[in-house]
C-alpha cells in the first residue's frame, strides 16, 4: 500500500540531543506534544531539511525525500513541504499579496495571469482578500496565521508542518483561531504535522497525538487514549492542563 501521508524514520544527533523517531500521518493532522527540549523543533528541522538526517527515511505521499541507505537527500528547496513557523515568518517588507506571490513565483514558472488568479483564489479561500494590499506588520495574530497558511498552501505542498501554530496569539484570539484552524486542517485533508506544547491545541487539532520525550516517541493515540492511559508523568500533567 502506498502511504498517502508523511512517514518518517529519523535518527540524528542535533546539538546535545539524540533523536530517534518513527512516525506516520494519515491525511489530516498528527499532533506532536512533548516537554521543552524533547526534540520537537529538531524533528521539524530534520523533516524540513535544515538539519541533516544521520540515518533514516522520510517519505511524503509516496515520494522519498530522504533515504540515507540509498543516499537520497532531497534539498529543502525541492521537498515541497509547507512550513508555518511559530512567529509565522511573514516577509515584513512585502504586502500580503506579495508574500503569497513570492511563494508562487519561487515554486514554478507560472504565467502572470494564472499566478494572479491563484493568489486571489487562495486569499479568498482563507478569507483574507481584503488584506491583500496591507503590509504584514500591522496584522493581528490570527490574520498573520492565515497569510502564512495561504503562502504555504498556494504552492500546493505535499505536506504541512506547523510549529506551535497558536503560541504567538493572546488568550482571547487563541480559542477562535484554534477553532478555525481545526476545521480548516480537516477540510484540507493534507498530511499535517503540528508541534505544540499546548494541551488545548493538541486536543482540538489532532485526531492523533504522538508524545515526544527525550528524542523518542513514547506514546501515541487519540486524546481519549492518552487521557485514559497516560504513559508518563508528562502526559498525565499535560492532559490535566487542558481543562484549565
Amino acid at each position: 500500500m502506498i502511504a498517502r501521508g508523511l512517514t518518517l524514520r529519523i535518527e540524528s544527533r542535533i546539538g546535545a540531543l539524540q533523536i530517534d523517531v518513527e512516525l506516520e500521518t494519515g491525511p489530516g493532522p498528527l499532533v506532536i506534544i512533548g516537554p521543552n527540549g524533547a526534540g520537537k523543533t529538531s524533528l521539524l528541522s530534520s523533516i524540513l531539511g535544515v538539519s541533516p538526517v544521520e540515518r533514516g527515511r522520510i517519505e511524503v505521499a509516496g515520494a522519498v525525500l530522504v533515504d540515507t541507505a540509498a543516499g537520497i537527500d532531497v534539498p529543502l528547496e525541492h521537498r515541497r513541504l509547507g512550513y508555518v513557523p511559530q512567529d509565522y515568518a511573514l516577509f515584513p517588507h512585502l504586502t500580503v499579496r506579495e508574500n503569497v506571490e513570492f511563494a508562487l513565483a519561487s515554486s514554478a514558472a507560472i504565467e502572470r495571469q494564472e499566478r494572479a488568479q491563484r493568489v486571489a483564489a487562495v486569499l479568498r479561500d482563507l478569507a483574507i482578500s481584503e488584506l491583500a494590499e496591507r503590509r504584514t506588520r500591522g496584522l493581528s495574530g490570527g490574520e498573520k496565521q492565515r497569510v502564512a497558511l495561504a503562502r504555504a498552501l498556494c504552492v500546493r505542498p505535499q505536506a504541512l508542518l506547523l510549529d506551535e501554530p497558536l503560541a504567538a496569539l493572546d488568550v482571547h484570539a487563541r480559542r477562535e483561531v484554534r477553532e478555525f484552524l481545526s476545521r480548516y486542517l480537516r477540510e484540507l485533508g493534507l498530511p499535517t504535522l503540528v508541534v505544540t506544547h499546548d494541551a488545548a491545541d493538541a486536543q482540538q487539532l489532532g485526531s492523533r497525538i504522538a508524545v515526544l520525550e527525550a528524542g523518542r516517541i513514547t506514546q501515541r493515540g487519540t486524546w481519549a487514549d492518552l487521557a485514559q492511559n497516560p504513559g508518563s508523568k508528562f502526559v498525565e500533567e499535560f492532559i490535566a492542563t487542558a481543562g484549565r
Partner: protein
Amino acid sequence: MADPRLRTEQRALAISGGILVFFLAAPLFALIATATVASLEAGLREPLVWPALRLSLLTTTSSLVLVVLFGTPLAWTLARSRGRFARAIETIVQLPIVIPPAVAGVAMLLAFGRRGLFGSLLYPLGVSLPFTTAAVVMAEVFVSAPFFVQAATSAFRRIDPNLIVVARTFGATPLRVFSRIALPLAAPGLVAGAALSWARALGEFGATLMFAGNFEGRTQTLPLAIYTALEIDLRAAQALSVVLVVVAFGLLIFVRSVLRRWSEREMTP
C-alpha cells in the same frame, strides 16, 4: 533629590564626562571658529585644492563601488556560516581595522609593489601598481572594506532565519532568497555600513602615502593635500579640513538617521 551626597556624586560623574567632551570638541571648534569666509575663499583658491578634491571623489567612489560589490556577497556568506573557517575569514577581514595604516602601506608594497609577492608577477606583463591612482583605490579598499563588511554581516545576521527557511521551502534559489528577501531587509544596515566605509576611505592617509605616494592630480587625495598644504599655506590646509569636516558631519547625521528609522521600523509590531 534632597540628599546632597547624591547630587555631588552625580555632578562629579557629569564633570568627568564633560572633560572628555571638551577634549573631543575643542580641535573641531578651533578649526571652524578660526576660519573666516575670506580665509576659506583664499584657501580654496590654492592650486592643489581642486585636483585633490576631484581625485578624492573619483577614488572614494571607485573604492566604495568595489567594496559594496564584493563585500555584500561576502557578508551574506559570513552571516550564514557558523564554521571555524568562516570565523577565521571574518577575523582576516576585520584585521585592517586594527592594523596601523602605515603598516598597511608597507604590507601593500610588499604584496603589490614591483618586487612584491604578487606585484612581481604583474610587472613583466607591464602592470605596475604602486604610485598610481589605482594604488590609491587599492589602499582605500584595504582600509575601508572591513567597516562595510562588518556592518553588512551584522545586518544580515539580524534577519530572522525562519524567513530564509520559509523562502527556501517554496523552492526559491539562493540568488532569489538573497536578492528578494535578504537584501531588502538588510538594506538600511548596508547603507549605513557603506557610508561609514566611504568616510574611512575619504580620510585614508597613511597607506596611501606609502603605497601610492603624494603626486598632485594622480595620488594626492584630500588628506594628502592637507598635509602638503600645511607646509605652504595654513589657510589652504584649514579650508580643506573644513570641507572634510562638513562632509563627515553630514555623513554622520545621515547614518544615524538611517539607523534610527531602521530601529523604529523594527520596534513597531
